[in-house]
Every structure is written in structure tokens, then in C-alpha cells.
């Protein structure tokens, strides 16, 4: 489902960088939430972000689609720099899908309507076409039979898979995940992670905040460790887990790996 491979070389090189954050700072009042973050994610790359609670993972990922505005530095997404220009932000959001930690499907719309809403209103897609597209993605997350139900009638895992399908219906170039499994009961975590693994196999560019180390080992090109609003360490999964360089990373890994 991506622009991988077949696109002309020129376009690939120009757009080779999917997301680039350079020297990004963000304050909440006095609190320094992001303290000079540099992160470059290439097209097709999968980056897993981890770090202790309050280290700024969510804030960073939310700066990528303009849910938070950074105050210093530069955020460029798919060649578009995010400023406080609302048009630009909307432009970026159309190309960037996001799945949140909290289950936030629209409760007043059916599963199908949740999926067709943005294609119809933002992409101006004919309803029929949008519905066909939605059914296709619902089938991909293995719940086409739930299309007519309301979100409240689904389990947490199913809701999160619908959220993934809903984002995919916009045909995004980049997918952001903010701890998509941490609000779920343990038995539902796997079904959501499996869906994300399949997405990764298809070559989607993904930035995933997660502490699921198995998932990170399986799909990540790179694991990034954040602490106190900074990126402390960034390495390939094998290297990251077996030879962490920084003390803080070691401490963190010892805590989550028991």
C-alpha cells in the first residue's frame, strides 16, 4: 500500500526523508518537555521509541502531526515544514495517520462510518468508493464482520484494530503509534501487534512509541531511547538491547526486561 519501489528515482531521493526533527524544543509553561530533539526517519523505516514515563515520547510524536506545536527548532514531515500555518498542518495530517493509546473511535458513528468519515470529508471520495476502501482495510485487520457495529460494542483490541484501519483509509505515508497496546488487556495485545507487524511488512513508514520489546526486535530498524525530553540513545535493536551504551538506557532496560 505504499509508494515504495515503483516510484521514479528522483521522487524517491527527494522524499527519502519521511520525518525530520532538528533541535526541537517544547515547553509546557516552565516545564521543558522536549529539550533539543533530533530525529531523522527515512521512508520505509520503522522506529520504535521508548523511555520512562514523562520523558516526552508522546509530546515528540504529537509534534510530528501538529497536535502539539514545538516552540524552537524545525519539524519537517514529508517535505512540509510545520509552522503555525493551519493549512500546512492540515496538509501534513492528511498524510500522517495516528493511533492513540486511549480508545478514541467516534462513539456516535458505526465502525464503517468511523473509517469512511475522513476519506469522504477530507479526500472528497465518493461514499461507495470510501465504503469499499474501508471494507478492504477492515478485512485486513480481520474484523470486516463488525462494520455495522458501534465502537462500544467491540472489545478493546478490536477497537484498536479499527483505529488502525481508520487511519489507513486515508492512505497515509507515515503512521504514528502512541503506545497503542498499553490500554489493552494482555490477551488483546497480540492481535494488535500482529496487525502492526503486517503493516511493517508492507513497508509502511512507522514511528511507534512502545515498550513491547518483542515487537521492537521483530520490526524496528532502529530503537530510540528518550529521557528528560532528550534522545539519549539510538541504535539498531540488536545493538540496543544487548549493548546499550548509556547508563540511563541500561537502567531503563533492566527495569522493563526484569
Amino acid at each position, binding site marked *: 500500500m505504499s509508494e515504495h519501489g515503483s516510484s521514479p528515482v528522483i521522487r524517491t531521493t527527494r522524499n527519502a526523508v519521511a520525518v525530520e526533527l532538528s533541535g526541537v524544543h517544547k515547553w509546557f509553561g516552565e516545564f521543558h518537555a522536549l529539550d533539543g530533539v533530533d530525529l531523522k526517519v527515512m521512508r520505509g523505516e520503522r522506529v520504535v521509541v521508548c523511555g520512562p514515563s514523562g520523558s516526552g515520547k508522546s509530546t515528540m510524536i504529537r509534534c510530528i502531526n501538529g497536535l502539539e506545536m514545538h516552540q524552537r527548532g524545525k519539524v519537517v514531515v514529508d517535505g512540509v515544514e510545520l509552522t503555525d500555518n*493551519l493549512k500546512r498542518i492540515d496538509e501534513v*495530517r492528511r498524510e500522517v495517520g495516528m493511533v492513540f493509546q486511549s480508545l478514541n473511535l467516534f462513539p456516535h458513528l458505526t465502525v464503517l462510518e468511523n473509517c469512511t468519515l475522513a476519506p469522504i470529508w477530507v479526500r472528497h471520495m*465518493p*461514499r461507495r468508493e470510501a465504503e469499499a476502501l474501508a471494507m478492504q482495510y477492515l478485512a485486513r485487520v480481520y474484523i470486516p464482520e463488525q462494520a455495522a457495529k458501534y465502537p462500544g460494542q467491540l472489545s478493546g483490541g478490536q477497537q484498536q484494530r479499527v483505529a488502525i484501519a481508520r487511519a489507513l483509509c486515508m492512505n497515509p505515508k507515515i503512521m504514528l503509534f502512541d503506545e497503542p497496546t498499553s490500554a489493552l488487556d494482555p490477551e488483546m495485545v497480540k492481535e494488535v501487534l500482529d496487525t502492526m507487524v503486517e503493516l511493517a511488512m508492507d513497508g509502511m513508514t512507522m514511528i511507534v512509541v512502545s515498550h513491547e520489546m518483542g515487537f521492537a526486535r521483530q520490526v524496528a530498524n532502529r530503537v530510540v531511547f528518550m529521557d528528560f525530553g532528550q534522545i539519549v540513545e539510538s541504535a539498531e535493536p540488536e545493538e540496543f538491547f544487548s549493548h546499550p551504551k548509556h547508563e540511563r538506557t541500561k537502567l531503563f532496560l533492566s527495569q522493563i526486561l526484569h
Partner: protein
Amino acid sequence: MTEPGKAAPAAPGRAMPLADPRFRSIFFQTVLIVTVLAAGYVAVINADANLRAQRIATGLGFLDHPAGFGINQTLIAYSEADSYGRVFVVGLLNTLLVSVIGIVLATIVGFVVGIARLSSNWLIARAAGAYVEVMRNLPLLFQILFWYLAVLGTLPSPRQSLSIADSIFISNRGIIVPSFAFGDGAEIVLAALMLGIGATAALGMLSRHRRRATGRPLTLWWAAVLLLVGLPLAVLAATDFPIGIERPVLRGFNFVGGVRMLPEFAALLIALVTYTGAFIAEIVRAGILSVHRSQTEAAYALGLTRGLALRLIVVPQALRLIVPPLTSQYLNLTKNSSLAVAIGYPDLFAVFAGTTLNQTGQAIEIIAITMAIYLLLSLTTSALMNWYNARMRLAER
């Protein structure tokens, strides 16, 4: 209580009869029914004795008697020679007029102020907050008198009235605007206007259909302008202008021609709208706040603009919470319109439960009819709003 001996806290295990929900419900219902029947009996006996003593005939015959007093705002033809029955209709229409216009305007004011109070603009949010606090904390009667005496009452007399383009005149006698004068063939122009409105509505539906089918609505504004303005104007010219505009003209101490909005009406309407609007604003604000922020963020993340997110995600969810208390506000506004009596706006309460009652002394009949009418208005409003709410709920689950 009927059993004072058992008022002491019951030991566990030894159940008091009143602690049994079935017995309790039957007991209290019986007490209530007996009380109501007894009170009703006393009232009827009393009324009968009083009426006999005062030699007042009972029954609705008085409705056919001539009223003999004038009314300063009548939506239907009325003169002093008309009956009390007609007074009733005139008053009812005046109540409906101020209530319906009031409800529409208060809803608009309420939504605008309620949303403004949530604005991220400090000044707008504070101004809306101050408005709500002032309006809902001052007694309504005071506000009606304020607009009537302190604002509209201090306007100049008709001769010195403030005029806008020599067509709209504002004075202490009210606001006068030009009216239409209908000549021969006016029906054709009106028909053309209706046709234009109908065709525009049809086009709107077509456009919605198109959006469902192709994703893009039709671009309609030029067609709408043509149908709504162009068509009636063309017909107007073709039929040699059967509809003219009649400007108000000062004749002696007052104006002739044009349509006059009484200061009593204006004061009552303004006060009802600003007062009720403040309460509706709070209801709207609470409804919108009840929709969790993550819903808006999910909508933004999908690329929906602020306006679309508000319209498609926030408002539909907020409405479920807004509609029931909104109904109460509509009922309040309708009932509060009876405060018109304080400034002499001729609503149902003033001309029927006021003047007519004083002149005829038919207190029981008139109060009963008036009560029944307010009850009917309230129940109708409630029924409409319940129907709307049920339809929305149905669409969700």
C-alpha cells in the same frame, strides 16, 4: 406518620412495614390520592358558595360577550366590539409570537456565547463569561423593566425619532420599518418567490446526493442567488411592480404606514432572549466540554479541519446532553413571557388572565383555560424535543 410508635430505628431483622418498598409505594400513593380528592372537594364547595354569594354565572358564555377594550398589538383583525373569545385568540397569538421568535433567537445567542466561552481568545472567552454571569444573576423582571423603562423609554418622541435612511424610525413609540404594499398581480410574484425557494431546496438535496455519490457537492451559490433573487425580481418587473414598498411617514404626532414593533414587544423579546440565552450558553458549554478532548484530537489527526471536527464529531455528541436541559429552557421562556403583564405587552396572560378576568370576574374558567393553554404549549414543546432526541439516539445505537 401514621405509626409514631415505630419511628425509632428498627432493629435489623424486624422489618418496619414502611421499609417494604411495595407497601411504602401503595401507602404513599393512597395518602396522595386522598389528599388531592379532599382538597378538590373543598375547592369546589368553596367556589360554588362564593360564586353564589357574588351572583356570578359559571360557564363559558362570557367568551361571546363584547370585550370593549382595545389591544395595541394584534396579529389578527380586532376591535373593541369583538368578543372575549377573540381577545383570547389575540393574546394567545401574541404569546406564541414572542415565544417562538424568542426561542429561535435565544438558541442562536446561547450557541454563539456558549462556544465563545470556550474560545482560546482570552478577551472573547472573558466577555462571554461576563455576559453569562450578569444575565443569569439579574432577575428577569428587572431586565424587562430595564429595557422597557431605561432603554426604550428614554428614546425621543416620534417627531425627533432616530431615522435610518428615512425608512426606519426608532422612537419611544417603537421601531417602525417599511412594509410591503400589495397590488394586483402580487400573487404571481409571491408564487415566483415560493418557486425559487422550492427549487433552491431541491438543488440543495441534489447537491447532498451528489456529495454522497461523487464526494464533491455541486457548486450552488450562483444558482441559489439566481433563483432566490433573480427570479422574483424578473417576475416583479415583468408584472409591472405589483408589490411596492410603503415607507412610514410622520403624520402629526405619529407615523402612518410601515410595520411597527411595539416597545413593549421589543423590551420583552430582548430581555427573554438575553436572559434565556445565558442559560442556554451554559448548557451548550457543558455539552461541548463533556465531549472528551481526545475525540477532537482523533478528528484532527485524520486531517479534519477545526470546523469539520466541531460539526461532525463534537456537536453531534454534545447534542445528546444539550437537548433535554434545552427543552426546559424553551419551556421557561414560554412561561416567562407572561411577565409581559408588567409592561403591558398584550400576551395571553395580560389580556385574558388579566383584563378579561378583571372585567368578567370569571376567575375559575379563565384561570383554568390559561393554565390548560400553558400546559398544552409546554407539553407540545416537550413532545417535539423528545421526538428529536429519540431520533438522534436511534441514529447512534
